[in-house]
């Protein structure tokens, strides 16, 4: 025996003797019988659709056999099943062409989130206390059916469906269910919705849709606050186009001019960044138009239907001479004239508007003004200009109403809403406290939620019927922008459900069948996938008869590919815009006296959490914001001059107060914001949204004024003024910061 062996043997005999019977306790867990026979170690990529923002990118999900810890029939154990491991962009999908943003990648964490609702729940404690007990699906559906069956005759109008903006058959099912209930209230709510763009584009161009900017072919972009590389509209598609504009055409680089008062990620990429006072964007766009008209840089007789909606256009926009606008806005008239010349002579050029400029009280006018400028530049419907994704053949208008209107009805009419179905909308977080949304929803006698997580709104629910995660569910989508061609996406489930959940459309169809009568007639499908297949059969008949030998083959091909897109289809013929009276430029209204509340308060969509609906994902929490590099927190941006005047230093805790509330956040002192503005990312400051987001940071939406944009009834979220007060030392965790920098309070230890 060698020395080494002897040592081994002696040591081990001692050690093992002492520890006999010590096994791996993992082996004691029950193993459930697998439902699918997969070959271990072999990955398959399944097409899916990203649902984390409204862009509708196509994805591929890598699925492999794995062992999931699950509960089946009340028992905890291990199940071998196909599990989603990674998400990438679908190279065949026309919107994102194989690319994907970090938010899309994090869909995995929605699926595997430890705080997902795993079974149907019924409220036990006081409303909002978050006390629920688990019930079975049969009990849950029985209870909901009995509540809904009470809504007959006059009581029918007490039904309301409140959802995030939905598309495709998911929207059809909710819409038909609402109509079948003889109710009219289906409210789609999102803080950053595209209603203003839709309405303005309908008025100017006849398209009730957000625009698709053909950035890859353009030579000159004038963007008014639109963060098209960050979160606005279809950011992945736009980033691809922008990359092509900059690098895809040798010798031709393209220029980006950004007008905004707080520099976004897009602004940080701009060749020329011009500070524009909040609410002046439309006026500046018309000053550019004035300069083009005055210098006759564009043919005077060029058709411009969009211009008809601008008061004073026919007279050559006398109120918008660059000198006049320069005096009002603090810009230089020479700059405005130069940009007008550059845009007119570097065709194709395109103007964009989005985010804060469309969220002032005059946001609608601003959008119309930019539309008119686009028309003047001759960019509408041309390569390198403004295009519109062709609408699907079966598109129809659905009954929708604004949340503000619903709140008013609940406040004024007794029993205006008696049963509310809630799906993926969180207005208590994403509406200001002053809007009265919380009190209004609390007055509704019965609320059922389909959400996968408890949040500020769904905690009020009496009944929770948890939805599948997007990876476990059938999905279909009709992205309204981001592509020149018609895109209809479809995806079968990428994996089987981990928990005892059911897909929302399936539950709605099931309930409709049980209720019978008109609701059942309005929804002829038994399951959601049957409904999607029906829409694809219709699509085959209408548009795609030459793409497959029959509807079944077309349906199968679409599932394999992740959807169907009409590659050869060009932009559809322009519909005739409506004729209506010119819109007057009314000065934007701001809440708060400028003397008492000296700063414009500009919330902005977070790169990480979008509108706050993604704050529950730890990958998003730990990712540094691309501009500020702040992680796991929130901040308030202010100009160094502002900070100096108020005696505030980097990371100092600042109190931000409006007429409607106050909050505290650490200061981020940066020259990338105008001295009369302060800005805060939306997304943090949840009171009740999983272990990762609850009580982290502050929610800027909570202190906003309940001002709305008249034309759409949506919140004017950039129309509040605030005052600042230094409170003390704060904490700002930034990427690459030393401990001392990140935590100044530790400096003297």
């Amino acid at each position, binding site marked *: 025996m060698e*020395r080494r062996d002897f040592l081994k043997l002696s040591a*081990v005999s*001692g*050690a093992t003797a*002492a520890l006999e019977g010590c096994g791996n306790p993992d082996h004691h867990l029950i*193993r*459930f019988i697998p439902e699918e026979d997969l*070959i271990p*170690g072999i990955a398959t990529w399944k097409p899916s659709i990203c649902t984390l923002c409204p862009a509708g990118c196509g994805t591929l999900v890598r699925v492999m056999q794995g062992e999931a810890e699950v509960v089946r029939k009340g028992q905890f154990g291990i199940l*071998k099943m196909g599990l989603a491991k990674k998400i990438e962009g679908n190279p065949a999908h026309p919107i994102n062409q194989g690319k994907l943003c970090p938010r899309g990648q994090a869909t995995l964490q929605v699926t595997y989130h430890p705080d997902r609702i795993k079974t149907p729940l019924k409220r036990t404690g006081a409303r909002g206390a978050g006390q629920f007990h688990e019930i079975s699906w049969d009990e849950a559906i029985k209870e909901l059916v009995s509540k809904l069956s009470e809504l007959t005759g006059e009581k029918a109008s007490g039904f309301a469906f409140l959802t995030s903006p939905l598309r495709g058959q998911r929207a059809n099912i909710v819409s038909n269910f609402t109509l079948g209930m003889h109710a009219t209230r289906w409210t789609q709510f999102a803080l950053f919705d595209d209603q203003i763009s839709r309405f303005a584009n309908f008025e100017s161009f006849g398209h009730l849709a957000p625009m698709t900017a053909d950035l890859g072919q353009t030579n000159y972009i004038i963007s008014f606050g639109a963060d098209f590389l960050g979160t606005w509209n279809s950011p992945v598609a736009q980033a691809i186009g922008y990359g092509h504009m900059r690098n895809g055409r040798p010798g031709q680089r393209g220029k980006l001019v950004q007008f905004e008062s707080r520099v976004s990620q897009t602004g940080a990429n701009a060749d020329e960044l011009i500070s524009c006072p909040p609410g002046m964007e439309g006026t500046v766009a018309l000053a550019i138009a004035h300069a083009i008209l005055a210098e006759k840089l564009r043919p005077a007789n060029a058709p411009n239907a969009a211009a008809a909606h601008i008061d004073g256009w026919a007279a050559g926009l006398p109120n918008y001479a660059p000198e006049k606008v320069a005096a009002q806005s603090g810009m230089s008239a020479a700059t405005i004239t130069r940009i007008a010349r550059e845009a007119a002579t570097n065709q194709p050029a395109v103007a964009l508007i989005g985010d804060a400029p469309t969220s002032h009280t005059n946001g609608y006018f601003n959008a119309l003004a930019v539309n008119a400028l686009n028309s003047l530049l001759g960019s509408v419907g041309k390569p390198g200009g403004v295009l519109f994704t062709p609408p699907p053949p079966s598109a129809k208008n659905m009954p929708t109403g604004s949340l503000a209107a619903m709140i008013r009805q609940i406040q004024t009419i007794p029993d205006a809403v008696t049963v509310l179905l809630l799906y993926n909308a969180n207005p208590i977080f994403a509406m200001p406290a002053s809007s009265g949304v919380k009190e209004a929803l609390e007055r509704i006698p019965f609320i059922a939620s389909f959400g996968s997580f408890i949040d500020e709104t769904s905690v009020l629910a009496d009944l929770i019927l948890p939805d599948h995660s997007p990876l476990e569910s059938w999905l279909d989508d009709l992205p309204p922008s981001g592509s020149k061609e018609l895109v209809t996406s479809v995806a079968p489930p990428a994996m089987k459900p981990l928990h005892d959940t059911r897909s929302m459309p399936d539950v709605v169809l099931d309930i409709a069948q049980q209720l019978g009568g008109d609701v059942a007639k309005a929804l002829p499908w038994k399951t959601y996938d049957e409904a999607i297949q029906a829409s694809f059969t219709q699509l085959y008949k209408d548009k795609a008869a030459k793409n497959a030998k029959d509807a079944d083959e077309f349906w199968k091909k679409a599932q394999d590919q992740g959807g169907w897109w009409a590659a050869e289809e060009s932009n559809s013929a322009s519909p005739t815009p409506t004729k209506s009276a010119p819109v007057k430029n009314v000065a934007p209204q701001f809440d708060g006296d400028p003397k008492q509340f000296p700063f414009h308060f500009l919330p902005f969509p977070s790169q990480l959490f979008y509108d706050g609906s993604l704050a529950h994902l730890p990958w998003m929490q730990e990712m540094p914001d691309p501009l500020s590099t702040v992680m796991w927190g929130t901040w308030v941006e202010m100009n160094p001059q502002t900070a100096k005047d108020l005696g505030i230093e980097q990371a100092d805790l600042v109190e931000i107060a409006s007429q409607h509330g106050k909050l505290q956040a650490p200061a981020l002192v940066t020259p990338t914001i105008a001295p009369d503005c302060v800005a805060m990312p939306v997304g943090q400051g949840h009171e009740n949204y999983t272990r990762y987001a609850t009580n982290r940071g502050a929610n800027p939406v909570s202190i906003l004024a309940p001002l709305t944009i008249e034309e759409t009834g949506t919140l004017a979220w950039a129309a509040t003024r605030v005052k600042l007060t230094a409170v003390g030392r704060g904490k700002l965790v930034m990427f690459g910061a030393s401990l001392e920098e990140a935590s100044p309070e530790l400096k003297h230890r």
Partner: protein
Amino acid sequence: MFRPVLRVNRYFRAVIGICLILVTAIILDRALSAQSSETSSQASVGSGIFTTAHTSVYAAVREFFGIRSTPVQPIAYTHKVHLANGMQCTDCHVGVDQGPDARIPSVNFCMTCHQVIAKDKPEIKKLAAYRDRGEDIPWQRVYGFEPSAHVKFNHAPHIRAGVDCKVCHGDMTTQTVAERKVDHTMGFCINCHKQKAASIDCVTCHY
């Protein structure tokens, strides 16, 4: 004459010393983990961490000395009988020629035949009981590498190269439940790789 005795003494002291250190470390480790499971009701199975590769000192010691417990299978499955009846390895272990691991069939797969065949035998009754309870059979792992070895083994290229199953798994026609008949040391792998002129680069297997 004197020197060997001294050496033995020195070895003996070293052995006693190491044993004492190990036993103390193990007792301390277990005491600490017991304490933490008392304080935290959340402490789930196998959540202790000694190093990133080992859950406890015990696991580390066992791995260092290459000690592996003999797996005790829940059912006395017999490879011998199945193979004698003309079945092939790949009838059950599907996918061995396609990917890194072969499939271990689920209880449902076994029951496709045993619904009818030999259903009165005690082991088959156990099998049926698992199926009736909705449980899969908790087979214990026989072969495999320690995670800290960073070995990535892939069955498919070995099958393609015509390596017989028995080269690595022994003659299954003589075994009932699978036993570790062949010691999968690095030397064993390298020998064969050299004979077949396969790559012996470190990163071929360790990555």
